[in-house]
């Protein structure tokens, strides 16, 4: 009994950590940059597949891949924002028009990135095994890679939380998220902050992808599901609250773990139901304004 509960809890924390990462990523892109990036999941997918390739072809450890993929995707995200979304932002007549056009542009990105992945890796399901040996915690058995993933997910989440609260750039980001106009007046270079935030979103995807690939099988169409989960977590935590996304991720992860225990096919449905109830009853989420 206790073992089952522990299993569920740790499983929930692992998924929660991943969800927190991807939600924080999306939250940065939407909360600050005002871009609802529906291609977020595709970045995660690229991170996952790049890790797979690096491991199966070159024997590079997924943990090392994580350190590579993160920054690489950060740069790609940064460049995409500086070119594509910045251009749209300058050209848009209103915030609403920019919201729509950036959403549609990110759809275009979704199509493009997914297709590129299909061309490179074909449509097959891939997987690899890494750190498979079981580790025993309080009588329950866990594959080592799951615990490593948990460690990294939680660690990165906490590190990022720290970054936001205590560094200059972090504070600038939070200021820009709360009130972009005032932040700009106060000397924050809004163009750079927006692009950096978008890049940071991609960074999170670059971290989450490798971690996911360690634990699950991957296929090129996996991105959309993660994007949706990220959106649900962001709404759950409250739009505009990065802490909310962190906490919301863990909450949803735990819920998912519990539901999966009873009926594995139902977890996504459960997420959607929560999402719909949220939108109807409390769209501002837990920490939102």
């Amino acid at each position, binding site marked *: 009994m206790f073992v089952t509960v522990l299993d569920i809890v740790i499983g929930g924390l692992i998924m929660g950590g991943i969800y927190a990462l991807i939600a924080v990523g999306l939250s940065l892109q939407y909360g600050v940059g005002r871009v609802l990036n529906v291609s977020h999941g595709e970045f995660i997918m690229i991170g996952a597949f790049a890790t797979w390739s690096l491991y199966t072809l070159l024997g590079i450890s997924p943990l090392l891949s994580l350190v590579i993929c993160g920054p690489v995707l950060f740069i790609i995200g940064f460049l995409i924002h500086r070119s594509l979304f910045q251009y749209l932002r300058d050209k848009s007549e209103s915030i609403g028009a920019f*919201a729509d056009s950036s959403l549609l542009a990110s759809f275009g990105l979704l*199509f493009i990135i997914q297709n590129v992945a299909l061309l490179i890796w074909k449509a097959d399901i891939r997987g690899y095994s890494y750190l498979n040996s079981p580790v025993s915690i309080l009588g329950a058995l866990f594959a080592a890679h799951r615990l490593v993933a948990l460690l990294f997910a939680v660690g990165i989440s906490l590190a990022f939380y720290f970054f936001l609260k205590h560094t200059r750039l972090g504070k600038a980001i939070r200021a820009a998220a709360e009130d972009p106009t005032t932040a700009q007046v106060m000397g924050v270079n809004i163009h750079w902050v927006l692009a950096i935030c978008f890049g940071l979103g991609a960074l999170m995807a670059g971290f989450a992808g490798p971690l996911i690939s360690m634990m699950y099988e991957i296929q090129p169409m996996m991105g959309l599901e993660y994007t949706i989960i990220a959106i649900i977590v962001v709404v759950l935590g409250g739009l505009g609250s990065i802490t909310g996304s962190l906490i919301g991720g863990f909450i949803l992860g735990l819920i998912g773990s519990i539901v999966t225990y009873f009926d594995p096919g139902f977890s996504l*449905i459960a997420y959607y139901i929560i999402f719909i109830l949220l939108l109807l009853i409390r769209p501002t989420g837990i920490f939102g304004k």
Partner: protein
Amino acid sequence: MISQKPFLLGLLILILILLATIPLYIPPYPVISLTSIIMYIIITVSWTIFSGPTRYISLASAAFFGVGVYTSAILGHILPLPVVILIGGLVSFILALCIGLLTLRLRGMYFIIFTFGISELIRHSLLWWETKIMGTVGRWVVAVDHVVVYYVILVIFILALLTAYLIRRSRFGLAMRSIGEQEEAATHIGINATVVKTTAFAISAFFMGATGAIMATRWTYIDPKIALNPLFSFMPVLMAIFGGTGQLYGPIFGAAVFAYLEEILITKFPYYYMLIFGSILIVVILFLPHGMVGLVQNLRKRGVKRQNANS
């Protein structure tokens, strides 16, 4: 300068006569292709009935279409075809009323995400239900002769087009455009935004449902993944944006071009068509925000300016 309206009307009637007589002298395969293309045009035109003027981007098209498909699968064995199609449309209509009343008070982003979420929820729920309760995932649909399918689609197309045209020119259409321009001001001049939006949403869903019901008979085998494929939510948006929502011919043109492109690309470059579509979408958003309609209108304006400068 030829008087525009009678000319366009004559052209339209000519095209319709042509379309109506096509099965008489064209082999089955192109007729089936044409059926698919017209299907996309109907979905896109229907989508534009609501999302065009109000600017609420709906991603629920797959849900409405898919519900029609399932109506056909479930009732096709028991009821005659015309009734099934009508019921397919009605069920989607009612679904849209419910969704609309629940969510049309949510603005912008929330509405888009919600409509997508509902579509996916319905898809996953159907999948879960079919697997757990029914035991099988797919269903067989009573097949219908391809010529009959073609004519039914043509009729739905004409009705949808007529509806779109009449709405656009009516006070209802003006109300929708006012909501799309400035919703708060619209409510302050007496427009009941919730009723207007929900009604338009439901009307657009009706045609999608009816279309789904007849297309199911073409595919004969359906499952949740086929019936509620998210592409049916994304493609109308893409097609309408490409064509331009400002005029009625915009979505028709956009859908025709893309559906035709898809037919060609799927056979010749099956691994590239998403890439091409995505790139076109980005190019259009960056450089042609009002779609092809906007381009045509710009060219016309420039033509008029040049005329005025020369005279």
